[in-house]
């Protein structure tokens, strides 16, 4: 469905992504793990063009998308309209939620369809209520985010992303900012989504969750994919790659 080829991303002299290739198939669940600063967030952000790449190409359904070359051969983002259309097919859930504080839960979830897709309010409302119900927050629908717990906020953020009916969901450490006792409710929401066959890329430090969710686990280090494999291979305790082994031992 979406393919990254030879992606290079630099911040000045620092290379954040070093010739990364990733192919995401329909319905696939990819979990990315790796030490801090290895480029996981940067990778997710390039997928929905929040970060512009310096080299490589991104393909949607086999066709290059989002970039063109300027006269000097450098990659530049396509017009805003094109980028927005691509982004609206991809949902993103942030570590720090980034709910819109001036809108109630219901308004947060309705915002995407109403503003971006121009969905009629009534229709958007029905869809939003359905999604709020699915993440178990019907009783909070008219509450402002400031009055929610971290776990509740993250579930609203998931519902908000889903309201755009994305083809792909990106999760960047969705539980890292949560107290341990609130992690479970967010995982439950994501698992429910997985059960419906949603394609997703998840960055997480929760190895138990990674093992349970992943079709494929990718280990990133130093801006590169060091290892890719099935969860069984990665978590069986017989990891051959010393870097991955060291990392797993440090987090488990």
């Amino acid at each position, binding site marked *: 469905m979406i393919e990254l080829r030879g992606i290079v991303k630099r911040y000045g002299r620092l290379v954040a992504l070093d010739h990364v290739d990733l192919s995401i198939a329909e319905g696939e669940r990819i979990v990315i793990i790796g030490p801090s600063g290895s480029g996981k967030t940067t990778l997710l952000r390039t997928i*929905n063009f*929040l970060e512009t790449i310096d080299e490589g190409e991104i393909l949607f359904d086999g066709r290059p998308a989002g970039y063109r070359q300027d006269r000097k051969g450098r990659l530049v983002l396509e017009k*805003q*309209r094109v980028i*927005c*259309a691509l*982004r*609206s097919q*991809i*949902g*993103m859930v*942030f570590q*720090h939620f*980034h*709910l*819109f*504080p*001036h*809108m109630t839960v219901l308004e947060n979830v309705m*915002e*995407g369809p109403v*503003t*971006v*897709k121009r969905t009629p309010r009534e229709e958007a409302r029905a869809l939003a209520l359905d999604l709020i119900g699915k993440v178990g927050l019907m009783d909070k629908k008219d509450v*402002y*985010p*400031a*009055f929610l717990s971290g776990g509740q906020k993250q579930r609203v953020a998931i519902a*908000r*992303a889903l309201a*755009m009916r994305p083809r792909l969901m990106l999760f960047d450490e969705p539980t890292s900012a949560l107290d341990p006792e609130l992690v479970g409710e967010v995982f439950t929401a994501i698992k429910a989504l997985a059960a419906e066959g949603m394609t997703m890329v998840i960055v997480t430090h929760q190895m138990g969750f990674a093992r349970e969710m992943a079709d494929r686990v990718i280990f990133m280090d130093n801006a590169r994919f060091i290892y890719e494999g099935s969860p069984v291979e990665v978590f069986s305790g017989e990891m051959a790659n010393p870097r991955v082994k060291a990392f797993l031992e440090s987090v488990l």
Partner: protein
Amino acid sequence: MRGRPWVAALTLGLSIIVAAVPLMGADSPGTPDGYALLAEASRLVQEERLAEAVAVLRKIPAPAPGEDAGLFVRSRIDAAKILLGLGDLDGASASCHEVLALLPSNLEAKNLLNEIRDARTPRWVKFLRDMKTYLPTLLRATGMTLLLVLATMLISPVAGLAIALGRISRMRVVSGVFWCYIWVFRGTPLLLQLFFIYYGLPSLGVTLEPLTAAILGLGLNYSAYLAEIIRGAIESIDAGQMEAAKALGMTYWQAMRRIIIPQTYRRLVPPVGNEFIALIKDTALVSTIAMVELMRAANQIYSATFNVFILFQAAIVYLVLTSFFTVAFRRLEDALGVYEIR
């Protein structure tokens, strides 16, 4: 004699009459005795022996029927002036009436009597009388001040927002132009800007009504201030908000309009409220470009009445306005903060 102009005037008047005596000749119809008394009084006034001067003036007798009344009238008028100055209003009044008994239409005496009546009226009665006369003017002027305030309050946030958005534009030219605007209008006195618009523009072929010039000047100036405040508020919104909006597929302007700008409202109220309080007082500056607003009206009425209370009254109107808006902004801030935990 400093501080007593009437003494100086009087001395001068008496001296002229005394100096005129020799020219009138010894056989003029007045009493030679009377001229001597007038000269004596003049000397006493010069020595500031005022009570004695009055006594001397009073010695000048009433003219016999058919005789010239000039000397007598002079003496009683002068006596009345001195008595008025000494605060003996009854004495002064009696002296005037002596003149009027003889010459019922004597203007000088009548004017003096008016002055005496005025001196008898208590201050508060005069204040109320002035109030009644000038209240309509004052109210109209207050209305004008309010109009200036409200017009600027409507114009400057809208223009300020536009300037702020231009200022944060990634297009260098756009942001540069608005930077210049803010630089000029915040860096020069409002008074100078008003003068330029009202007195300077006509020489460039643009002539504006005082009201238009005043609203334009205040609007341009306050837009620059508000632009910087609004820019600060926009930049204070967590960058994650823009990211989240973009991740949903919003364009930059959609994100600004729906997500970023609405979140600044609450944060804007206190600093913008401060600016608007300053604005209420700054409207006084447009009195310099032929606008009759509260300050100018108070000034005019004060010049006409020398009544200090008019200034207090203007102060009270300003205080009422500033207090009202202070409370209003407080309420607005609370109302806009419903989504925050307090």
